[in-house]
């Protein structure tokens, strides 16, 4: 039987069929759907699997590793930058013999599409000598998950599965097997019967699949020899023989030149290192097609293909509005950012990782590094400003899930050192960016059962933060006042002020108010709302030269009324 599913569910399926016993993860695109997939398949198959969202990747890895040491089959899931958080324990785990099995799934993000950096999990694994699998499709990812977990048990060492987002988020009909009965079909090595000696292709992951489609398009499938790699470490010896049997070899892989670096021979091996391919980023269909054609030219093989630029040339003359991602209509974060900017336009704004990184477009995030960076950057700025005797207000922001993930030692450290900054915790009681996973405050487990809820206020107080205020971000004037007061009332002994801007995620609650927001009538066309608030429901009517609220998108939160200078004027008149 086959079932249509995304790659992450296919991985979950493979793990459940391999009878995984414990699974721990921290959500992060593109890895977030694996744990919910395990929960679903375990329920369907009546398999008892302990599944948990851990507070961060280090916790997830160690929980899984502990279970594996004891003899259980364990899995832990994260995105590539999450592996950085788990790195100390991952590194250490390689020195130990495990009695069970441990599959670490670290999902990479070539591009990157939803991360701050690309990074290649395979690179780390190759350097450390860890077995790492690089599947080319959802079906293959299911096989790799199944095979990888069992292999780990056999080796007594962790094994890593590295899908990219094009595997994790591709959809394919994946074959289902009974528990313990998966027929793994992982075929590495020579593909097809290409006999051309001028050049050959080594490829892994999604790039392998794309290569095969490109060769079909160009009619080269019977000519060009292709060597497919799934196990990037340890690398199959035959790939070296493959290289040595040909005049030239080009390597297609994502994201870094890992296989290519192993194969590298000057003048013979082509890829990201010698400039025929870009040295970073996703290998799109167009990039791979272009490189294959270039290799054909280099090797004297005729190929029929004409690049067409007509459409792009015409499109280049038409203005297409850029459509960057925005916070949703009615998002409480937008109100918070507006209030922060309004309260203190001259502040320096360190931000953090989540939906609210989008605060950049509202001018209320100046700089961010990684999860938890907001607090530490604020601390760093504070020590410099103190030293130089400058009085620059510092207004940092972070979400509730990220706060629990990466800000606890940070805020304690700042409190102990009496740092002078205001931290706004945007508390929507959910991990929104990655698909609505519960946070420690939510009081729910990964499979929806009740558990202890950890109070944000109590946590802050225990960590030594003396001043904590809770405000509803929809009360924009109150929030502006609270921020202003916090910034002006610093005493030397205080340490950081924390303002909790608390309101549930609208996307999660699917809330809508049945009221029409009337900005259109009073609008004078100043565009202040577009510039400072930038709600997706706002459009500018170029004919009438005034704002138009898109009633299909507007949720009726009414926050924009605080932003409109006309509205406050007319309201004052009424009063």
């Amino acid at each position, binding site marked *: 039987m086959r079932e249509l599913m995304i790659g992450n569910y296919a991985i979950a399926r493979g793990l459940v069929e391999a009878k995984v016993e414990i699974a721990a993860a921290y959500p992060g695109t593109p890895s977030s759907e694996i744990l919910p997939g395990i929960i679903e398949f375990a329920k369907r198959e009546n398999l008892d699997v302990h599944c948990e969202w851990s507070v961060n990747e280090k916790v997830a890895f160690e929980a899984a590793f502990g279970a594996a040491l004891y003899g259980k089959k364990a899995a832990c899931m994260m995105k590539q930058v999450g592996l950085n958080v788990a790195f100390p324990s991952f590194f250490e785990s390689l020195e130990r013999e495990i009695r069970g099995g441990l599959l670490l799934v670290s999902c990479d993000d070539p591009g990157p599409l939803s991360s701050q950096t690309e990074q290649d999990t395979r690179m780390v694994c190759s350097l450390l000598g860890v077995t790492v699998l690089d599947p080319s499709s959802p079906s293959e990812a299911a096989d790799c998950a199944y095979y990888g977990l069992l292999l780990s048990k056999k080796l007594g060492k962790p094994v890593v599965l590295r899908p990219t*987002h094009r595997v994790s*988020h591709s*959809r394919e009909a994946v074959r289902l097997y009974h528990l313990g009965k998966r027929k793994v079909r992982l075929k590495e090595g020579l593909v097809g019967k290409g006999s051309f000696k001028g050049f050959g292709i080594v490829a892994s992951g999604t790039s392998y699949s*794309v290569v095969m489609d490109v060769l079909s398009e160009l009619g080269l499938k019977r000519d060009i020899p292709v060597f497919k790699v799934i196990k990037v470490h340890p690398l199959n010896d035959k790939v070296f023989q493959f290289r040595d049997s040909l005049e030239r070899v080009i390597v297609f892989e994502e994201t870094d030149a890992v296989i290519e670096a192993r194969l590298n021979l000057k003048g013979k091996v082509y890829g990201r290192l010698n400039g025929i391919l870009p040295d970073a980023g996703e290998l799109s269909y167009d990039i791979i097609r272009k490189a294959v054609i270039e290799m054909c030219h280099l090797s004297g093989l005729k190929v029929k293909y004409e690049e067409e630029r007509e459409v792009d040339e015409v499109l280049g003359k038409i203005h297409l509005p850029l459509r960057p*991602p*925005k916070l949703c209509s009615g998002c409480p974060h937008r109100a918070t950012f507006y209030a922060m900017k309004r309260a203190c336009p001259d502040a320096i704004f360190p931000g953090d990782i989540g939906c609210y990184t989008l605060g950049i477009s509202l001018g209320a995030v100046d700089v961010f590094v990684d999860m938890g960076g907001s607090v530490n950057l604020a601390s760093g700025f504070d020590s410099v400003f103190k030293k130089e005797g400058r009085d620059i207000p510092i207004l940092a922001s972070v979400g509730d899930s990220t706060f629990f993930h990466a800000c606890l030692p940070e805020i304690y450290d700042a409190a102990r050192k009496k740092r002078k900054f205001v931290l706004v915790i945007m508390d929507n009681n959910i991990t929104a960016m*990655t698909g609505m996973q519960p946070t420690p405050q939510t009081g729910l487990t990964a499979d929806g059962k009740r558990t202890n809820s950890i109070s944000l206020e109590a946590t802050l107080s225990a960590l030594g933060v003396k001043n904590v205020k809770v405000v509803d971000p929809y009360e924009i004037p109150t929030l502006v006042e609270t921020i202003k007061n916090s910034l002006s009332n610093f005493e030397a002994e205080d340490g950081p002020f924390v303002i909790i801007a608390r309101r549930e995620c609208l996307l999660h609650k699917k809330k809508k108010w049945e009221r029409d927001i009337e900005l259109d009538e009073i609008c004078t066309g100043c565009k202040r709302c577009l510039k400072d608030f930038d709600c997706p429901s706002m459009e500018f009517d170029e004919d009438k030269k005034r704002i138009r609220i898109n009633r*299909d998108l507007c949720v009726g939160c009414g926050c924009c009324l605080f932003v409109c200078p006309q509205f406050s004027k007319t309201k004052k008149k009424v009063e």
Partner: protein
Amino acid sequence: MRKRFSMEILCAGIGGRGVLLASTLLLDSAIRKGIYGIGSDEYGMSQRGGSVVSLVKVGDVKSPLIGKGKADVILGFEESEFLRNLSYAKRGGIGIVNTPKKALNSTLQDLLEKRGVSLYLLDADDIARREGLYQASNMAVLGFFSSLGIEPFTFENLRDSICDRLKGKMLEKNLKIFEKGFEKGRERRG
């Protein structure tokens, strides 16, 4: 020997507006007929109202990615996103775009004609709004596409896919919008 067959569809639209559901329904329809299919979606940041592209390939294909000049069909769930991806349309391909306009930019329209691309303009938002479910304009586009009768994306097959994926009131409304889109397609083509 079986004849090689493949069909590549690029779905372009705005995050959170049903592009993903549309591409899933296309895949379902292929799989129901025993045809191999693979699709690729964009998640994360792009879902927050940004540009979204969802790719569907069925038949003798391996990867979910589409090259420029390779897409048999471009389904534009929003006009500017449709235009942004137009260079992926192959010669002799099909373009369906959700727009209230009666014609696109004339230079572009001429060029598409020259390249043999059949272009269809459809006010899917209007159809969906009339049924009280603005977010479901994707169904009108799918309905229109089904009127072209290209296997395996026929009216009956896509309708069955919708019935399998949706339930209750949502199913009722979505189906209605899908049917309206289909009718528009039939009218247009006489």
